[in-house]
């Protein structure tokens, strides 16, 4: 059994957000981090590895610099890293990215008990589309927003978090699950994990390696094959500050009513 965890290197949006003149994000000027939800996906995979001894492979599409992220994830406990990287893949939107990642996963190979874990969404685009699209292209069952994952044989039970409650789903493997931050707390790297990370296998899959897959059609990959066009990117202006009120309900309600009255809201 193996778990393929799809991860993405994203700009750290907790710092300053820089935008290019064409409206796209200026990634080079921003600190790169592993997408937070993807860290939860990896942690879920590592917890299953702790229980079952399964193999965990981290896969990312991105520039060569993303190998640094893959090494860090291997220092946390992933067994292998795969970097999907080629000029032809650059500028891909979610549709094109899921095509390429699907081809890469087919190249790695999926067996009966295997799982694919993705983060719910990346903090740069917030689309939450790549995971579900990937499952569709691989013709796999999928569950999104997983807040708990249990595996027994060739089935997994996933507690799916919805706005108004939970849904528990039993699903056959192989399948795809997207993970949310409520699922777990990602572990630290370890010192010995770090010192061993560079001796673990890291493969690069380029255009040559994947070009024979029918999904790798120049018309549906890369910037030209992406149906999405970015009209404009901007940092929304900050809304007003938040005031936290302490005290018993009656006093706080009174103070709140006074504030709203003073602003002529009520």
């Amino acid at each position, binding site marked *: 059994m193996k778990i393929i965890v799809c991860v993405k290197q994203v700009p750290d949006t907790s710092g300053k957000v820089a935008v290019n003149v064409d409206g796209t994000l200026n990634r080079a000027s921003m600190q790169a981090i592993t997408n937070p939800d993807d860290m939860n996906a990896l942690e879920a995979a590592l917890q299953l590895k702790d229980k079952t001894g399964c193999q965990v492979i981290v896969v990312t599409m991105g520039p060569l610099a993303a190998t640094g992220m893959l*090494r860090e994830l291997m220092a946390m406990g992933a067994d292998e890293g795969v970097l999907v990287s080629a000029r032809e893949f650059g500028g891909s939107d979610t549709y094109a990215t899921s095509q390429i990642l699907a081809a890469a996963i087919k190249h790695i190979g999926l067996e009966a008990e295997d799982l694919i874990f993705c983060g719910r969404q990346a903090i740069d685009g917030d689309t939450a589309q790549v995971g579900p699209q990937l499952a569709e292209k691989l013709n796999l069952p999928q569950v999104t927003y997983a807040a708990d994952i249990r595996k027994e044989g060739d089935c997994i039970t996933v507690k799916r978090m919805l706005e108004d409650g939970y849904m528990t789903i039993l699903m056959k493997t192989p399948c795809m699950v997207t993970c949310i931050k409520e699922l777990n707390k990602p572990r630290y790297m370890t010192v010995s994990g770090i010192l061993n990370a560079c001796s673990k296998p890291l493969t690069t899959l380029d255009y040559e390696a994947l070009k024979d897959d029918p999904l790798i059609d120049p018309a549906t990959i890369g910037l030209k094959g992406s149906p999405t066009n970015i009209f404009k990117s901007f940092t929304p202006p900050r809304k007003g500050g938040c005031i936290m009120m302490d005290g018993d309900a009656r006093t706080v309600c009174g103070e709140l009513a006074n504030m709203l009255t003073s602003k002529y809201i009520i």
Partner: protein
Amino acid sequence: MDFALTNEQEMLKKLAAQFAENELEPATEEMERNHAFNAGIFIKMADLGFTGLGISPEYGGSGGGDTEKVIVVAEFAKKCMSSAATLSIHLVAPKTISRFGTEAQKKNFLPKVTCKGGLAAFALTEPGAGSDAAAVQTTALYDEATNEFVLNGTKCFITGGALADVLVVFAMTKPEKGLKGMSAIIVEKGTPGFTSGKIEEKMGLAGSETAELIFEDCRVPADNLLGREGQGFKIAMVALDSARIGVGAQAVGIAEGAVDLSAKYMRERVQFGKPIASLQGLQWYLAEMATKTEAAKWLVYYAAYLHDTDKPFSKEAAMCKLNASENARFVTNLAIQIHGGYGYMKDYPLERMYRDAKITEIYEGTSEIHKVVISRAILNQ
């Protein structure tokens, strides 16, 4: 010449910084309040492999050398000097056992302190033997009948001494031979005749325990002799050379932390209608603090590099410790000055950092002793 950290070292720096920010910094307040070592924090360090740095995985260690130790200790010291000191000093005894111990000693003692949250201590100092380490009065006389050493005497100012699971203790096995009669002996916690005395209250380092150790007819197997009989002084000096690099790293970490806090405060603090960062007087302070700290850091890295590549490093270890520790006091002093009244208040970390920085000029050899070591090395060349 390569000044770049390796990929592994970059990752280690990141891990240490994350751990320091998430786990150590929030614990400093409790350490200051209780004046006590935080065992929970130490176990977390062990779980991630920090306490086995520099020791081969074969003996439960995490691998790495002095450079890796420097990286971790400096990152810890930026946020919590007590934890940095605890780790840095803990690592001295296992490193010494690893270097001078027999295979059986390494297999027996190292796993107890490298990976399971066990603490190690290095017991050399005595009330009458500080800078003059050769004046050790503790004896460890050999009892032929039982094939044991019998320890008698008192050690003082021993970091982690009362809590440690494994200690390297220096004692005179042949008192009449002076320096050549000193030996290093491994003592385990709970050995009959070994107790702890006074736990010191200190100016700083609140979260690092400093204990008096008392040996009264404490019998340890002769197999616990580390290295050869009479080799104790040499073992102590080799161990202290490496320990000094650790203190250099602590001092660099505190200074870097103080520079970071000062830059942040200068940008945020508004006086006379503008941030105090616009005042040239303070800009000059900051530039001087950052420059000296950067220089101190590279001398520490250089000493660690020499040690890791098996080159002579005694002089450079002394130089890096002397320079970094004096810089740590200089920088934390100016950082308080930049922060004004806020810097003097206990609600802010700088007064703690200033008190913590002072010890780096004293322990593992005072600045004055280091000047002796350095000048002797130059004059004897």
